[in-house]
């Protein structure tokens, strides 16, 4: 998939597949092309190149057939400010053959007592929950959730995670974007990390984070990681990133006590005292920062 805006190439040969019945999370720094990608799938804009199929349909051409089958939660807004929450859901329910009961959706998103409150007077989290309820009203097969929990408090976030798990349990496919690695790690069967309009990682969540253990410590910057590597079992990897933060990984294996001993011995030989030394499994956040770097983005 390719999408250009003038001279800017927002999506640059991106290729991804989200399987039916799964939760697919699209991660990426700001400006990576997440929203552009999702909006092409929703039929808002046509790709400049490549092939896009959503539920077997071309969203740019077959909107009439596709739109009733999908639910969409935009990143922000889209709901008329003066319209009460309950009235808005009732409106959308009239667009579908077998909609959910708007009152039930208000109930499960915790908005029952706000049913008569105009959208503009809802809190940020309530607005997000209404927007989520609106995406579900038509009993869709597939929902697109663009940063569904942005602005939610922890309670609402957990309730939303339960809701997404329930959707998946009932056979609804979910494609979501998020900045919360924990969210993706918990919910997603499949994770795609995109950066500068390209997929830089794509796979089952567990495969991306892997069982491989990692050992991290802090010490003075500029230690010779090559000599450290030679002291470690074959297949290990050692690097310093950012300065003063050292990371040792054993791809496909686990950190053994002998490795820990080798690292501390190597430090002792150099009169280096490692601090914040810890052994942990890789988190999605580690993978994310490794692939997309630590520079701040637009």
């Amino acid at each position, binding site marked *: 998939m390719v999408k250009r805006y003038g001279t800017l190439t927002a999506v640059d040969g991106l290729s991804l597949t989200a399987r039916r019945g799964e939760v697919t999370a699209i991660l990426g720094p700001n400006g990576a092309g997440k929203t552009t990608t999702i909006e092409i799938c929703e039929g808002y804009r046509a790709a400049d190149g490549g092939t896009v199929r959503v539920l077997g349909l071309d969203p740019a051409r077959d909107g009439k057939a596709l739109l*009733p*089958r999908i639910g969409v939660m935009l990143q922000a807004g889209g*709901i008329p400010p003066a319209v009460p929450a309950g009235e808005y859901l009732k409106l959308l329910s009239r667009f579908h053959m077998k909609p959910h009961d708007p009152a039930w959706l208000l109930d499960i998103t915790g908005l029952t*007592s706000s049913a008569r409150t105009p959208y503009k007077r809802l809190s940020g989290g309530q607005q997000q929950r209404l927007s989520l309820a609106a995406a579900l009203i038509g009993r869709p097969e597939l929902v697109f959730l663009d940063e569904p929990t942005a602005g939610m408090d922890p309670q609402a976030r957990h*309730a939303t995670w339960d*809701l997404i798990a*329930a959707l998946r349990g*009932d056979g609804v496919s979910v494609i979501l974007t998020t900045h919360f690695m924990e969210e993706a790690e918990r919910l997603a069967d499949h994770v795609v990390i995109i950066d500068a309009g390209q997929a830089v990682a794509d796979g089952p969540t567990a495969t991306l984070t892997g069982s491989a253990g990692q050992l991290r410590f802090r010490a003075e910057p500029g230690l010779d990681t090559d000599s450290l590597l030679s002291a470690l079992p074959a297949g290990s990897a050692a690097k310093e990133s950012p300065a003063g933060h050292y990371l040792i990984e054993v791809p496909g294996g686990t950190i053994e006590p002998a490795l820990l001993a080798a690292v501390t011995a190597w430090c002792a030989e150099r009169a280096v005292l490692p601090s914040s030394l810890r052994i942990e499994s890789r988190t999605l956040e580690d993978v994310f920062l490794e692939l997309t770097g630590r520079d701040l983005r637009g």
Partner: protein
Amino acid sequence: MTADTAAAPAAGAGRFTPAPGAAPMRRMVAAQATLETRTLLRNGEQLTLTLIIPLLLLAAFSLEPLVSFGGGYTRIDFLTPGVIALAVMSTAFTSQAIATGFERRYGVLKRLGATPLSRQGLIAAKTSTVIAVELGQAAIIMAVALALGWSPDASPAAIVVVPLLAGLGTAAFSGFALLLAGTLRAEATLAAANLIYVVLLGIGGVVFPLTKFPAGARPLLELLPTGALSTGLRDVLASAAAFPVKNVVTLAVWAVIGIALAARYFRWE
């Protein structure tokens, strides 16, 4: 406010089992039109524009001889057709431009684009809303006018020609409303729509007779949509004209131009 607790149903309980399908077009359009009408009636500023100002003008200019209308009309007989023209302009042009401009700004149009309601369906809903509001305005204005002594002098053809003039005027004003709303920022639309409203109120033959303007300007003013509509309605409702051909043609041309420009330049987001 009581604290609600959000509680998702158990995973696998089957409450979310997909069952998608679009409702019939007519039901979608009716639902959208109902919501838009209700939103408009709840909005105080819009209501002032569409109802309070026309009624105030009707009452003030008919009760006090603020302007001499000439042409042998009583004040109320002169004013009522003009105020009906103003009501059409306020709803189809000013109110619609402002509402649509802000809908575009708030992403409402974009969000509707992801529902089964098609763009044609949305336009049908907006048109139905405008017509419903205009019918309400016309009923109230005519009731107040009758109470103020309005006695229309109309041929039987008026029953067809008045809706024709109002319909063409609505089409023309709607086209330009959507042209503004679909191309300018919401604030610019708000300013432009209000400014154009005030100017056309002044030079459109609504309360100030076009005969008061220099003779050279009058034919031009009658070519403006407001002038064509107010003059046409006045000919039919106060002078028993059967069919004001020139005004009907003028409005039809404006309608074609406005709708063509809107179709060409309207941007949904």
